[in-house]
C-alpha cells in the first residue's frame, strides 16, 4: 500500500501568553491508501485540531503535509486549500451539517457541482451513492425529514462524492446510538477498502474499535501510542 498522507512535525498552539495552549506538539503520522485508522484520546488532547490541520481547514503553525505525494503544506500552504479540499478530501462530522434547504440528493450533488461537474452527471453519481447507502427512497427528502442516522449516511455519501483520496471523520457516531454508530463505522471501513480511500476517524467509542485497521492514541498534543486495533479489542475483552 502506498502512502496517502504523510505529516511531519506538525505544531499548533492557540492563544497568547498565559492562556497559550499547545494543541499539537510535533505530531508526525502517515496514512496508507485503503486504510481506516481510529484516533483516540481524552478530551482536549488535540484530535480535532489535528484533523483540521490535516484536512487543510486550519493551518498549523509549522510542519509539513504531503497528500498523494504532493506537498500541500510546508510552513504555509503550497496550494489553494479550498480547491484542494473540494477535489481530494472528504469530511464527516458529529452533526451531519447538511444544507437544510437541499434534498438528500442535492446535498450529495453539491460538492460535484461546486467542482464544475454537470447536473446530469452529478445527479447520476449522487443517486448511485445514495442507493449504495440504502437511502434510495429518501432521495428527495429534506434533511429535516431524515433520521439522525440517515442524515449521517447522506453526509458520508456527500463526503465521497468527488472520490476523495482522504476522508476525515470527527466523532461521526457521537450523536447516534451504539448499533447505528457501529453501522456507520463499518460503512467508513467499507468505503476505505472499496474506494481505496484512507480514512481517519476521531472517536470516543471504544466498542467499535475492531472495525479499524489501526488505532492512534493522542494525549496533550502528541501521538503517544499506536496499536493494531485487534490488540485494543483484545485488551478490552480481557478487562471485561
Amino acid at each position: 500500500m502506498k502512502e496517502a498522507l504523510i505529516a511531519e512535525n506538525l505544531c499548533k498552539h492557540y492563544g497568547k501568553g498565559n492562556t497559550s495552549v499547545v494543541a499539537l506538539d510535533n505530531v508526525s503520522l502517515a496514512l496508507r491508501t485503503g486504510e481506516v485508522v481510529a484516533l483516540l484520546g481524552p478530551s482536549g488532547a488535540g484530535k480535532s485540531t489535528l484533523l483540521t490541520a490535516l484536512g487543510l481547514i486550519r493551518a498549523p503553525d509549522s510542519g509539513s503535509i504531503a497528500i498523494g505525494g504532493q506537498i500541500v503544506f510546508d510552513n504555509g500552504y503550497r496550494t489553494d486549500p479550498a480547491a484542494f479540499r473540494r477535489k481530494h478530501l472528504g469530511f464527516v462530522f458529529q452533526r451531519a451539517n447538511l444544507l437544510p434547504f437541499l434534498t438528500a440528493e442535492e446535498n450529495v450533488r453539491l460538492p460535484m457541482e461546486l467542482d464544475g461537474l454537470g447536473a446530469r452527471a452529478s445527479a447520476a453519481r449522487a443517486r448511485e451513492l445514495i442507493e449504495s447507502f440504502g437511502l434510495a427512497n429518501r432521495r428527495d427528502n429534506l434533511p429535516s425529514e431524515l433520521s439522525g442516522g440517515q442524515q449521517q449516511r447522506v453526509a458520508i455519501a456527500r463526503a465521497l462524492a468527488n472520490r476523495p483520496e482522504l476522508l476525515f471523520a470527527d466523532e461521526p457516531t457521537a450523536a447516534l446510538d451504539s448499533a447505528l454508530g457501529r453501522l456507520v463505522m463499518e460503512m467508513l471501513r467499507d468505503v476505505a477498502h472499496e474506494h481505496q480511500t484512507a480514512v481517519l476517524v476521531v472517536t470516543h467509542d471504544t466498542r467499535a474499535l475492531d472495525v479499524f485497521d489501526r488505532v492512534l492514541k493522542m494525549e496533550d498534543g502528541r501521538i503517544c501510542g499506536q496499536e493494531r486495533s485487534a490488540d485494543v479489542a483484545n485488551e478490552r475483552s480481557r478487562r471485561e
Partner: protein
Amino acid sequence: MMNLAIKDIRHKLGRFVLTTVGMSLLLMVVMGMGGIYRGLVEEATLIIDRSDADIWVVQKETKGPFAEVSTLPRNMEERIAAMEGVESARPFVSHTIQRDYHGRVLRLTVQGIPDDGSWLPLVRGRPLSCGHFEMLADKSAKLPLGSELRLGNDTYKVVGITERLNSPAGDAMVFVSLNDALAIRDHQPGEAIRHEREARVRRFEHVAYGSTAVDHAETLRSARERPAALPGLRIGAVLVKVRPGWDVEDVRRRISALPDVMAYTADGQREIMLGGVVARSRRQQALFRKILGAVSAVVMMLVLYTLTLDKIHDIAMLKLLGARQGVIVGMILQQALLIGCLSFALACLIGNWAYPHFPRRVVIVRGDQVVLFAVVVGISALASLIGIRKALRTDVGEVLS
C-alpha cells in the same frame, strides 16, 4: 450549478414572504412620505400655476393674497387693464369657508372665476352656464354632481366636478362666478344691516356739529332712511396677462410704481408661498422624510444583515466543501437583491392602491422613485456584503463543533 439562493428561498418561503412584505410596507411609507412632500409643494403652487397669470397685483405693502390678506377695490381690474403692456386683467377672489354638511365638516376654498371655467380639468358635468347659483366642485370635496349647498342667502348647485384642485392648505376648491364669490364672502344677515343703520343714527344723534338745528335734523333723517352703507366690493388681487412681446418684469415694475398696489411675477408668488406660507411644514416634512429614510435604511440593513448571519453555518459548510467565494457571494447577494427588488415592486403596488386614500395629495415623481430604487439596491448589496464579509471571515472549523 444549482441555484442555491432560490432553493433556500423556497425552503424558507414563509420567512422570505414576511420579510419582503414587511420591507415593502416600510418602503411604501418612505415613498408615501416623499409623495406627501411633493404633494405639499404641488398644492402650494397649484393655484398660481393654474391661474395662468404673468403678474399678481395685490394691496400695497402686502404679500397677498395667499400669505396675508390683500384687498383691492373692484375697479382696480379696469385700471390695470388700461395700462401699457397688459393683455388682460381679471380679478382674483378666493376665501376658505368651513361649514357642516350632512354631519361632516366641509372645508372649501371658494374661488370666483370671471368666465364659465371651461379651462378647468372637468371630469364630470359641465362648465358654469349662467352667472349665478352654480358651482364646480373638486372631487376631494365629496360633493356629488347635482347636489345643492346653501351658502349665504343662496343655494348653489354642483354642475361640474374637477380633479386634483386643492388650496395650498389642502382644502377642496369650488368655483363660482365672481359675483357669487363676493356674495358668499360678504354675506350679511338682515339683522347685521339693521344694527349698522342703528349705529349710524346714534352717531349723528350725539354729534352737535355746531351747526343749525335744521341741518342736524336733516342729517339724522337721511341717516335713518339711506340704505345701509355696505362696504364697497373688494377683491383680493388682480391677475395680469402680459401682452406678447412685452417684458414681464418691465410691466411688473410699471404696475408696482402705482401708489396703491404691489405687483409680483408668478415666480415671485411661488417664492412667497414656498418660502413663507408652507415653508415650515415643508421643512418639517423634508426633515421627517430624511429621518424616515435613514431609519428605514438602518432597518433594511439590519434585516438583510441578520438574514445573512443566519446562514453563517451553511456558509461555513460551503467553504469547507471548497466552494469558491463567488458561489457564496452570489447566493447571498442574489437573495438580498431579490428581496430588495420585490419589496420595491410590492411597495409601488400597495402605494398605487393606498395613496389615493390619503387625506392629502401624494405625488409620486419618477425621479424620486428611481433614486429610491437605487438606494434600495445599494442598501441590499451593502448589507449583504457586510454580512458576507463576516461570513467569509468565520472559521471553517466552526462546523466541527
